[in-house]
C-alpha cells in the first residue's frame, strides 16, 4: 500500500497544469472561478484547444484519437481540469455518443462523426428523457417508423441539456411498440436542422436556460443514421450510461470549491472577526473537507483497481462516487451561499454580467453564487437519481 504517485505520474500532472496555465483563456477562467456559465463559443473554443493538444478524447481508443493513458493518468487529467477549474463542459459528444459510435456504429458513421466530435465541429445533445420517461427511461414513447430509407420520428423529449446549441441529437426512439419495453428501442442520430424539430427552452430556478423540450413532428431521419441494429438501442444506452467516468465524483471540482469558500470567507467580515475565523463555520468546512478526502481516497481505490481489473467489471466502491460526490458538491454550494450571505439576493442575468455595462450589485464575486447553488440541486437527480443509485447498489452489491 502506497499513496505516492510515480515520477512519471507527477511529471504528467505537471504537464497538464502547465497546459492549463498556458492555454485556458483568462476570461473563461475567471467565469469558471465565479461559478458563471460559459457561452457556446467559449466551450467550442476550449474543446478545440484540447483537441489540438490531442486531449479532447483521451479515453477513446488510440485509433480514433485516444491518448492511450493509464487509469491513473485519466484520473490526474480529470482532477487537474476540475481543480483549475475547468469543469462541467458538456461531454455529450466525447463521453456519451462518441463511445457508442466507435463501439456499435458502422464505418461510415465512425469516419464521419468521430473526428467532428473530437474537434467540436458538431454540438451534440442527448434525447433520452421524456415527460413520461424519467427514472423509468425504458418506458419512452417517441416513435420512429420506417418509411423507405428513412425513419419518421414523432414525439417529445425533455430536459435536453443545451439543445438550443446543438447540431445533432442522439435519440432513443421506439421502433417496435409490440414487444417488452426494453426490446423495441433504437438509437438514432438526428440532425437538429431537420424539418419538424422544435426546441423550446425551459427556464430553471437559477434563471438560466440549461435544458429544453424538443418536439419531433414527422421528422424524417435517414436510415443510415441508425446506430447498430434496429430495436437494440437499449443495449447501447446501457453501455453509454455504464461508461464509468472518473470525473463523476467531481472531487477536483469540490476541492476547488472549498478553496474558494476559504478564500472568500477570509475576505468576509462578520462583526469583529473574519468568517473564516469563526469556530462554528470552520467546523462546517472541515466536515465537508473530511468527507471529500474520504471520497478522494475511495475514488483512488476505484481508479487503481480499474488499472488491474477486467474492463467492464466495476469496483463496488465506484457506486459510491456519484452518491457522495453529489452530496459534497451540494454541500460546497451551500457553504458558498453562506459565505456570500445577504448579497446572494440580487439576481443578475448572465447577459448583464457578460455586458459589464453596469458595476455589479454587491461584491463582484457574489452574483453567480445563488444560481450555482440552485443549479447544484440537479446533481442528486440527473444521471440516475440518488434513489435509483441506491436501488442499484442494494441489488447489485448488497444482494438485497
Amino acid at each position, binding site marked *: 500500500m502506497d499513496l505516492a504517485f510515480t515520477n512519471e505520474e507527477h511529471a504528467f500532472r505537471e504537464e497538464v497544469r502547465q497546459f492549463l496555465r498556458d492555454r485556458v483563456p483568462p476570461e473563461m477562467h475567471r467565469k469558471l472561478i465565479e461559478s458563471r456559465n460559459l457561452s457556446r463559443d467559449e466551450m467550442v473554443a476550449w474543446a478545440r484547444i484540447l483537441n489540438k493538444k490531442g486531449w479532447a478524447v483521451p479515453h477513446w481508443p488510440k485509433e480514433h484519437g485516444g491518448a492511450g493513458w493509464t487509469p491513473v493518468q485519466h484520473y490526474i487529467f480529470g482532477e487537474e481540469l476540475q481543480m483549475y477549474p475547468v469543469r462541467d463542459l458538456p461531454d455529450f459528444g466525447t463521453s456519451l455518443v462518441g463511445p457508442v459510435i466507435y463501439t456499435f456504429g458502422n464505418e461510415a458513421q465512425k469516419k464521419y462523426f468521430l473526428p467532428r466530435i473530437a474537434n467540436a465541429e458538431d454540438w451534440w445533445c442527448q434525447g433520452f428523457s421524456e415527460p413520461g420517461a424519467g427514472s*423509468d427511461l425504458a418506458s419512452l414513447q417517441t416513435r420512429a417508423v420506417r418509411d423507405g430509407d428513412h425513419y419518421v420520428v414523432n414525439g417529445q423529449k425533455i430536459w435536453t441539456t443545451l439543445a438550443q446549441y446543438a447540431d445533432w441529437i442522439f435519440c432513443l426512439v421506439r421502433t417496435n411498440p409490440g414487444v417488452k419495453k426494453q426490446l423495441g428501442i433504437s438509437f438514432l442520430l438526428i440532425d437538429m436542422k431537420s424539418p419538424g424539430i422544435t426546441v423550446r427552452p425551459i427556464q430553471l430556478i437559477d434563471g438560466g436556460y440549461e435544458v429544453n423540450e424538443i418536439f419531433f413532428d414527422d421528422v424524417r431521419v435517414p436510415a443510415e443514421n441508425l446506430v447498430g441494429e434496429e430495436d437494440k438501442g437499449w443495449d447501447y444506452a446501457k453501455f453509454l450510461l455504464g461508461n464509468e467516468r472518473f470525473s463523476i465524483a467531481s472531487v477536483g471540482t469540490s476541492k476547488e470549491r472549498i478553496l474558494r469558500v476559504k478564500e472568500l470567507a477570509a475576505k468576509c467580515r462578520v462583526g469583529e472577526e473574519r468568517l473564516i475565523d469563526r469556530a462554528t463555520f470552520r467546523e462546517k468546512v472541515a466536515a465537508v473537507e473530511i468527507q471529500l478526502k474520504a471520497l478522494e481516497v475511495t475514488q483512488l481505490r476505484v481508479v487503481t483497481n480499474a488499472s488491474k481489473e477486467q474492463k467492464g467489471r466495476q469496483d463496488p466502491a465506484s457506486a459510491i462516487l456519484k452518491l457522495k460526490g453529489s452530496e459534497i458538491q451540494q454541500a460546497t454550494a451551500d457553504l458558498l451561499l453562506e459565505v456570500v450571505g445577504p448579497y446572494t439576493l*440580487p439576481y443578475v442575468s448572465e447577459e448583464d454580467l457578460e455586458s459589464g455595462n453596469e458595476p455589479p450589485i454587491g461584491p463582484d464575486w457574489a452574483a453567480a453564487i445563488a444560481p450555482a447553488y440552485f443549479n447544484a440541486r440537479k446533481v442528486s437527480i440527473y444521471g440516475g437519481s440518488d434513489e435509483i443509485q441506491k436501488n442499484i447498489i442494494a441489488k447489485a452489491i448488497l444482494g438485497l
Partner: protein
Amino acid sequence: MDFDLSEEQRLLKDSVERLILERYGFDHRRKYQTEEAGFSEAMWARYAELGLLGLPFSQAHGGFGGGAVETMIVMEAFGQALILEPYFATVVLARGILRHRASEAQKAELIPPIAEGRMKLAFAYAEPQSRYDLFDVQTGAEKDGDGWMLSGTKGLVLHGEAADRIVVSARTAGGSRDNNGIGLFLVAGDAPGLRRRGYPTQDGLRAAEITLENVRVEPADVIGDPAGALPIIFRVADEAAGALCAEAVGCFAEMHSITLKYLKTREQFGTIIGSFQVLQHRAVDMFVELEQSRSMAMYVTMMAGEGNTTERERAISAAKAQIGQSAKARSASSRSSSMVASA
C-alpha cells in the same frame, strides 16, 4: 392555552386564501412579474379593498387593529403563492417602524394612504458592508438647520424602487458600529439626491441599491429620537422575522401539498411513485418538519407580545432556525445539509 383562531381571524384567513387560490396561481405570478413594477398593481388594490394593507394599524388610525396573529394568517397565505407585491416591505417592515415610533402627525399623514393602497413604503436598513448587523450603519445624517442631510449607500432595499416613501436608517452620532447614534428618516422615493438602482431578486421580487447624496429631511420626517432608533429597528426586525416564518410555512405547506399530489399521480415503472416506500418516508419526513415549523410559527406569533425582550428574541431566533433547517432538510435520505452542519 389556545391554538384556535377567533371568528374574525378565521374569516380573514378564508378570504385571503380564497383570493390567493383564485388569483395567484403560478401562472398568474409569472404574468404579474412582467408588469412594469414587477408585481400586480391590481392585486395591490385588491389587498387594500380587503383591508389587508391597514391590517396591523389601530382602528383609530384607519386600520383593522390586527396583531401578530392576523399578520401570520396573511403572510402564511401569501407564502403559499410567493406573492410579488410589496406587502412585507410596506406593511410589515416600514409600517412596523411607523406603528412603534411615528408621531401622531406622521401616522395621520401616512396610514390612510397606505391602507387605501395609494402609498407604498420600503425600509432601508442594510448597507453593503453591514451583512446581518443592523447597527452597522455608515450612512450619515448631518444636522442641516432644523432638518437633516443624508448621504451614503443603502443596500438590498426590498421594493425600494416602487416605494413612495422610504424609511432610512442613518447615523447621527458615534462610530460606524455603535449602538447609539442611529436615527430613522422618512424620505420620498423621488427626493433630490436620491438614486435607486432596482433589480430582481432570486425569488422574483424587486429590490434596490439606494445612494443618497445630501438628501434633505425636514424635521417632520424624522421618526422618533434621531439617535436612539436601534431598539425599534431590532423590534421590527424581530416582527419581520416572525412574519417571514409564517410566509415560509405557507410556502412549505404548499410545496408539500404539490409534492404529495405528484407522488399520487406520477407513474414510473408501471406504478405511482408514491407507492415506493422510500418516497413515502421522505414525504413523512417533510410532513414532520412542516408540522414542527408550523408549531414554531405559531409560537413566535404568540410570543410577539412577550414583554421580556430576551425571551422574545430567543423565541424568534429559535423559530427562524427551526424553519430554515426544516425547509432545507432535503429529507433524511440525503445528508447534504446535515453534513454541512455536522462536526
